[in-house]
């Protein structure tokens, strides 16, 4: 039963053939068997999970039919959880116990979901391979020598290896979609502003967005139903009526206009990934969709603009880690300056420091116009490309990543790592929703297909993804990483 989707388990719970306590215990057992190897969880909450499961079972017994009641999930360790360590993958927050729940966490609690634990991630969400985590890299269950992608790598692996039913993630430049692609699962980044960022540790505030890692688009819809909505604590959460994302899953795709950006099928894309996505497009044609080429002429500038905007915002956001109010503080500082510098140098890893330095440089006197302002103008050009493309098409489809999961330790140069996100980054700069769904395999490794929607077009994205999953079984394939047991 652990391999089932949330939608299937929800039915089993409601028919009484299964209890949340049994289900939760099965996942806890599986975590204790495999987490050492996979390193997907930083913290496991065995006791509280079983308590929450018991409460869920009681509520079910008394007639509560909330779809996610009793469903075991994991939260990326970037979401504050009251009374449970929230490390953000960093030595700086290694022992930080949040004094409150993030809005996303609170919403899942209200929905009755059971929190199994907190998942591993690149430090402060800065990375595309999960190798920058203070707690060590996460292993890809499809090949333990390979990375799971990042930064939500722990969440992606927890779902792919059936250590939980579903998990939350965050996506600043591809951090949900790329690990979803590498691990063969479904990953949705909603539009900027759709989900509250309150209690989600900030990396780049104009790009960060919370989303879902799950076994199907239907499960992503169930999760988004819980997560989406305005929050008075996040002034950038948008005031739009809540939607039922499950209601449109079965809409017909007859007449759907799909755009394929020529820039996403250009040099650098591996032949196997291209072939898988082109095969998937044929599937869509069968369903009545038409395919048109669209132009995103400024896409090649997205990584450049992102590596100004994101580090600049990060350098400001991470200035709060000063060793005064919470988090790490160095031993025996000689004065205040020494305390700041040693606290920060000890608490942050190399990649985080690098990005703080780049951001500080871009914002420093004399460089603002050449870097930050210039990047904001490029951001406008990128958004305009999408606005123009969406005049002709309903969704844009391409590969999520140029290739399948790469080997641990194989990309040591930061710039090479940054270019990993060449297809996903523009979506964050423009604030659009994007989803990655499994679309095939190359040499036993999953391939992700990327679908980009219009502003607040999550419903359409989930519909387009779900219809594909009704025709294909790529999303049902399971990694075989287990030694004989």
């Amino acid at each position: 039963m652990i391999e089932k989707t949330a939608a299937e388990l929800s039915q089993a719970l409601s028919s009484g053939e299964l209890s949340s306590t049994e289900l939760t215990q099965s996942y806890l057992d599986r975590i204790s068997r495999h987490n050492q190897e996979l390193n997907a969880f930083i913290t496991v909450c065995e006791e509280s999970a079983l308590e929450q499961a018991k409460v869920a079972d009681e509520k079910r017994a008394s007639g509560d039919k909330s779809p996610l009641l009793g469903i075991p999930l994991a939260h990326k360790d970037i979401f504050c959880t009251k009374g449970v360590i929230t490390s953000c993958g960093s030595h700086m927050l290694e022992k930080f116990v949040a004094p409150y729940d993030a809005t996303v966490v609170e919403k899942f609690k209200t929905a009755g979901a059971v929190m199994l634990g907190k998942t591993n991630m690149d430090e402060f969400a800065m990375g595309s391979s999960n190798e920058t985590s203070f707690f060590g890299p996460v292993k890809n269950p499809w090949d333990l020598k390979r990375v799971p992608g990042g930064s939500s790598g722990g969440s992606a692996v927890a779902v792919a290896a059936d250590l939980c039913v579903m998990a939350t993630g965050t996506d600043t430049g591809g951090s949900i979609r790329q690990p979803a692609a590498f691990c063969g699962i479904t990953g949705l980044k909603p539009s900027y502003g759709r989900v509250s960022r309150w209690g989600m540790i900030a990396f780049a505030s104009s790009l960060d967005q919370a989303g879902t890692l799950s076994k199907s688009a239907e499960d992503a819809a169930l999760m988004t139903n819980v997560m989406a909505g305005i929050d008075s604590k996040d002034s950038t959460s948008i005031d739009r009526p809540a939607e039922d994302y499950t209601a449109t899953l079965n809409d017909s795709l007859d007449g759907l206009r799909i755009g394929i950006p020529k820039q996403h099928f250009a040099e650098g894309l591996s032949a196997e990934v291209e072939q898988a996505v082109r095969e998937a497009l044929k599937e869509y044609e069968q369903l009545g969709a038409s395919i048109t080429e669209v132009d995103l002429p400024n896409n090649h500038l997205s990584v450049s603009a992102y590596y100004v905007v994101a580090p600049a915002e990060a350098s400001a956001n991470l200035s709060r880690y000063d060793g005064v109010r919470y988090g790490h503080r160095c031993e025996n500082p000689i004065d205040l300056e020494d305390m700041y510098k040693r606290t920060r140098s000890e608490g942050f890893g190399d990649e985080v420091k690098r990005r703080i330095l780049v951001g500080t440089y871009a914002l420093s006197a004399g460089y603002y116009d050449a870097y930050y302002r210039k990047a904001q103008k490029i951001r406008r050009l990128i958004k305009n490309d999408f606005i123009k493309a969406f005049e002709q098409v309903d969704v844009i489809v391409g590969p999520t990543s140029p290739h399948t999961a790469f080997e641990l330790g194989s990309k040591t140069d930061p710039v090479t790592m940054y270019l990993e996100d060449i297809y996903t980054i523009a979506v964050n700069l423009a604030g659009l929703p994007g989803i990655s769904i499994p679309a095939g395999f190359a040499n036993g490794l999953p391939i992700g297909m990327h679908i980009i929607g219009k502003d607040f077009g999550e419903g359409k994205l989930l519909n387009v993804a779900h219809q594909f999953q009704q025709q294909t079984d790529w999303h049902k394939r399971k990694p075989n990483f287990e030694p004989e047991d």
Partner: protein
Amino acid sequence: MALDKSEVEKIAQLARLHISEADADEVASRITDILALIDQMQSVDTETVEPMAHPLDVTQRLRVDTVTEKDRRDELQTLAPAAQDGLYLVPKVIE
């Protein structure tokens, strides 16, 4: 543009980070590579483009200026590396 060690030191000071003498060359070279990636955007003429600070084209929502949070000072200060009598402790600043 290429950064040298002294410029890295200057930025590190602004960011309150300490970069050891042994690491300075490597940090300078990595950041120089990143700046080269960033500089690709300089080739585009953006003279007439309006900068985009944020993906949402909406105005900032304001709330009524009233206190809504309760006082949790004592609870929050338990998180501090050093606190006493409701105050955060730091190394001596004024002689």
